[in-house]
């Protein structure tokens, strides 16, 4: 895959943020938190052919801060860290299995949720939410990667 243009990324993140704002209040009742915008941004950076710069991650993070009504700088900082990590390990990921990559992104989302809760929701900080979210996100990402793999295999058979 290929580089996604900046307007497209902005639009996708806007839509994903809207979806997240709808699903989050429902899922949190089961102590599940899926940081969709963070995962989508991570996926865009991961699938990019070139290294997206830190400046790109910073401004996209600021944009997400504004549209998601988060404290300004929170998503910017986490997006910068995430893009730097993915850029640093972009070649190493090739040695990983899908399962390991899924676990990596689940762990990243776990870090994101924990860090975000420290700033936004410190009174209700919940380890149960972190553990449940980690398990659920791992399961979700693995399911998505398996279905994608099967989908590609079906296409190649035709």
């Amino acid at each position, binding site marked *: 895959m290929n580089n996604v243009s900046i307007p497209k990324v902005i639009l996708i993140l806007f839509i994903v943020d809207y979806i997240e704002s709808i699903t989050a209040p429902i899922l949190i009742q089961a102590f599940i938190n899926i940081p969709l915008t963070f995962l989508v941004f991570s996926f865009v950076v991961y699938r*990019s*052919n*070139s*290294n997206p*710069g*830190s*400046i790109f*991650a*910073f401004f996209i*993070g600021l944009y997400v801060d*504004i*549209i998601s*009504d988060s*404290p*300004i*700088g*929170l998503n*910017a*900082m986490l997006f*910068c*860290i995430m*893009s*730097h990590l993915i*850029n*640093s390990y*972009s*070649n190493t990921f090739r040695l990983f299995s899908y399962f390991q990559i899924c676990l990596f992104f689940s762990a990243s989302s776990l870090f994101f949720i924990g860090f975000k809760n420290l*700033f936004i929701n410190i009174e209700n900080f919940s380890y149960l939410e972190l553990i449940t979210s980690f398990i659920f996100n791992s399961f979700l990402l693995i399911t998505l990667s398996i279905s994608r793999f099967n989908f590609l295999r079906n296409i190649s058979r035709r």
Partner: protein
Amino acid sequence: MSRVAPTRGSKTISFLLISFSALLLYLDTTYKSFEGIKNTYKSFEISTSYVLKKLAIDPILYIYEISSYKAYLIKENKELRLALDESHLANFIISKDSNFFANDQLIEAFIIKNGLDDIFHLAKIKFFDTQLYFCCSQHRVFIEIFNKPSIEFIGSPVINSSGILGQIIHNNNFLEVLLLTDESHVIPVESENYFCNAEGNGTTGKIYCTYSTLLWPEEIKQGQKFFSSGMGGVYPRGLLIGTVGEIKKIDESIIRFEIDLIADPLQENILGVLENL
């Protein structure tokens, strides 16, 4: 194609941007420095969604409303018609109880205008113990004639719009009417060539006849009509009293049957009084 690992320069930029983000985060959480930006975005979001709703969703809803408007009108028409019927019914009952029938002046003017005194005298019910009517065997109604003519009414038949109700037996302050269903009342009735004295026994809406099959071998049928015979000189002849209801065989030769009266004293509170025959 492999990606290039971050250089020292890009690492530095990343570090600086992360630090700058942390500074922004500190400023926002501590001093709320960026509330203006957030509020501007929120107002922009609200106004945009409002405009989009006006431009995109409202026209679609408007088209849908127009398409469903006819069905809505039909439904509303039905509901209104139903409400109107109920209103008519309620008004009818109210007017029957209070307005038209209680307005003596209107009724007297109606009597004079139509010359009804020549045929019968209109009277209104002054007292009717309905509890006694339903529970017991004494069925009496107290009435008052509108124009109060100086005529003796004792023994006069009392009718309503359906038929005979009974006869006047006392004239004190008000005229006391003995109804057909009272246990002490007897009315001579006939059907074809059969005559019978029908007695009330306190059952509402029914009087009873007893006959011997030795005297009248013809079979009585349910639904057979009985009329006043005029015998006894109280009631005029040929007025429909009722139809045969249940028939019971008392013994080998005695048959007792009931006549379902067509006139109900609860039907109206304005009655007619015929002068003595």
